[in-house]
């Protein structure tokens, strides 16, 4: 619409009384179809199925996911509007959390949040005259390999992230080495692992080692989900990661701002992702400081 000259300023908005109003339960009931006969209700069972297959195929598991869940919780502690920021999640807390749908514990699963989020997109030229520092959409890629997990040829990946990520980086003319941080759609801790793996940050099953020593945490070499993400900040679908990428590139993130105060690289390029269904659709964005 922007490229065709039909629109100049497009707003993309999300709002959901998901928790208090019971909206998320309605959505999950709707997702429950024929596979319910096999114990797959809503989204948790479907992702648990994919994660279990991944454990078998490339040897991942809770040891890897704990580093993601606990790492993101550390970022949430620096974000005053995060839902979970006041509750630390040490390694032992993670393993003590109740099992929700094996192999997922409750802390592997995103929040259900009331609230909304919106962003406005315009041309790079118009952006220069506006109030905030511009954040450029430098590259994007999308890949939708299947409609349902039961129809997915490769349950443990590669997911749509592989092709979408490659396309987005190619359009932006950058490589993973140029990426300063990632804001990854994290409906489950495992989604972060498989997305980063498919983007090429590490090989299949090497995520546990890659995450060791706080790679994604404050002070780490590749900060991930710096608002706390959907696991620990709030769940507004793809607008949780995109909003955080924009705010970080604008330098307006307060205590969690990437740069000297969190012993991380001041960000020039951030990768952000969105994901739909049970790993069936994927969108990747390369966002760049304008």
């Amino acid at each position, binding site marked *: 619409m*922007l490229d065709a000259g039909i629109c100049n300023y497009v707003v993309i*908005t999300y709002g959901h009384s998901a928790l208090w109003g019971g909206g998320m339960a309605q959505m999950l009931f709707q997702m429950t179809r024929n596979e319910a006969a096999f114990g797959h209700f809503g989204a948790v069972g479907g992702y648990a199925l994919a994660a279990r297959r991944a454990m078998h195929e490339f040897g991942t598991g809770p040891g890897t996911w704990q580093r993601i869940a606990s790492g993101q919780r550390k970022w949430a502690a620096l974000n005053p509007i995060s839902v979970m920021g006041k509750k630390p999640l040490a390694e032992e807390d993670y393993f003590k959390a109740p099992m929700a749908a094996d192999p997922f514990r409750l802390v592997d699963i995103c929040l259900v949040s009331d609230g909304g989020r919106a962003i406005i997109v*315009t041309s790079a030229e118009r952006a220069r005259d506006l109030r905030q520092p511009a954040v450029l959409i430098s590259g994007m890629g999308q890949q939708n390999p299947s409609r349902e997990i039961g129809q997915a040829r490769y349950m443990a990946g590669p997911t749509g992230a592989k092709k979408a990520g490659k396309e987005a980086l190619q359009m932006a003319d950058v490589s993973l080495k140029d990426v300063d941080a990632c804001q990854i759609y994290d409906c489950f801790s495992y989604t972060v692992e498989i997305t980063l793996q498919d983007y090429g940050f590490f090989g299949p099953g090497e995520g546990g080692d890659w995450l060791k020593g706080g790679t994604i945490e404050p002070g780490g070499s590749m900060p991930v989900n710096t608002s706390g993400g959907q696991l620990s900040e709030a769940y507004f679908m793809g607008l949780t990661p995109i909003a955080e990428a*924009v705010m970080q590139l604008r330098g307006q993130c307060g205590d969690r701002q990437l740069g000297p105060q969190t012993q991380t690289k001041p960000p020039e390029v951030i990768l952000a992702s969105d994901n739909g269904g049970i790993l069936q659709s994927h969108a990747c964005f390369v966002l760049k400081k304008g």
Partner: protein
Amino acid sequence: MSLKDKYAIVGVGYTPQGKVPDRTSLSFHLEATANAIKDAGLKKEDIDGLIAYRHFPPCPGEPDVTPQHIAQHLGIEPSYLSQDAN
């Protein structure tokens, strides 16, 4: 032609979040959009495209939220309205 660096994100709108009682889904759309417009330093009349991101079944007791609803309640008439899929 490549879209590289041709477009930019210029506004972000937040709302109260977590467990927020007595609010409709529509009210969160309106507040987030109004805050994004303010953040960008725009006027609501500047908005000529509106995309309602994701589509869920309505919450019990609420009507389905449509992009038309959102535009009408904001008092704007975008040239382009769209509803994303689930």
